[in-house]
């Protein structure tokens, strides 16, 4: 972390808002691995299982990876960057703090973690989790500002709300034609169906 970033991190948590945390990593990829990683990520877009696999822990709202081949160049007064590596930008928006969930990554999907980041030089492949946590802390890009349209809603709350909405629409339709006793039966079934979501 630079002095500017240390000051920034101390002044304001530029990557948290409400329940949400935004983790940004920018890490080098071994040159021999870039094409493999690119191909695997391209495949991941078209394989439905990949999305479910990535989001299996139910605490991630949005997550992206970008392979940064080179930094964009806009001419003077910018000095063009000619880097020794291509870089993997990782940004995840999830229910924080991140330290609570690294154990899940390290012990449930270590192969995935090693596949994506393990071809970066000097990556401490999990398990165990503690070296991975130290590596993440070292590479976390701090500072700045963060925005979310629903910062007080966890991923589970959002999913529950969407399920509640859909189930409510059915009850509304039932309420239009049912008599009182029939409606109560529908209403009680509605509450039973949603007990895990309310």
């Amino acid at each position, binding site marked *: 972390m630079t002095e500017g*970033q240390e000051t920034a991190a101390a002044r304001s948590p530029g990557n948290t808002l409400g329940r949400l945390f935004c983790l940004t990593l920018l890490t080098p990829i071994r040159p021999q691995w870039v094409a493999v990683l690119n191909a695997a990520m391209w495949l991941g877009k078209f394989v439905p299982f990949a999305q479910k696999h990535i989001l299996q822990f139910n605490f991630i709202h949005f997550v992206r990876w970008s392979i940064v081949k080179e930094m964009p160049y806009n001419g003077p007064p910018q000095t063009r960057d000619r880097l020794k590596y291509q870089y993997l930008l990782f940004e995840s928006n999830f229910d924080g703090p991140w330290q609570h969930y690294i154990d899940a990554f390290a012990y449930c999907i270590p192969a995935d973690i090693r596949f994506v980041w393990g071809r970066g030089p000097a990556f401490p492949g999990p398990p165990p989790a503690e070296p991975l946590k130290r590596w993440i802390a070292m590479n976390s890009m701090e500072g700045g500002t963060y925005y979310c349209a629903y910062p007080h809603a966890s991923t589970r709350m959002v999913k529950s709300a*969407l399920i509640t909405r859909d189930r409510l629409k059915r009850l509304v339709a039932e309420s239009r034609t049912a008599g009182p006793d029939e409606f109560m039966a529908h209403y009680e079934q509605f509450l039973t169906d949603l007990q895990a979501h309310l």
Partner: protein
Amino acid sequence: MGESRNITGGAYALTVFTAIIPGHEEELRETIEALPRATESPLARLTQLHTSRLQIIDHLVYQGPPALRDALQSNYLLFTAAFDGALEPFLDAIIDDVGPAADRWWRHCVGYPSLADRAAFKGWIRRNQVHTSLFAVASPNESVANVLESLALREKVLEFAVSAQGLPAGEVQERFRRTFGEVG
């Protein structure tokens, strides 16, 4: 092909690195850190925006041996956003709804043409865009409006369930119709 990988369901992942004019880093840092947060943020005016981050990238982390040391010659403003729909309307919304606030952070960046030149601004963003390799979304076909509406409805259902306890069936139904009759 690059553009299609920015999209999952109805959501778009935008990633933009723009070089900071040398000597402007501190003022830019103060500008973005002083931005109001949450509903007061100028980004809250973008009704299609789920999440966004603005941060300065001024170093690369040395990983230790056997990695080679790498260093940035320029510093960058990294702007990321996850939003509903396509890029063009989103950039239009930045121009129309965020306006001067966005001007105040991007004017510290090399080549920034100002929001007044709509086409030039969009071209500048696209030239500095880094396409996504993989983008995963928990609820990929749910817009910001849908999520907010659903969260509000869930709260309303909870309140209703509590208030309706012990009431006769006819009254529950009547209250339900009044409360939720427009949903659907």
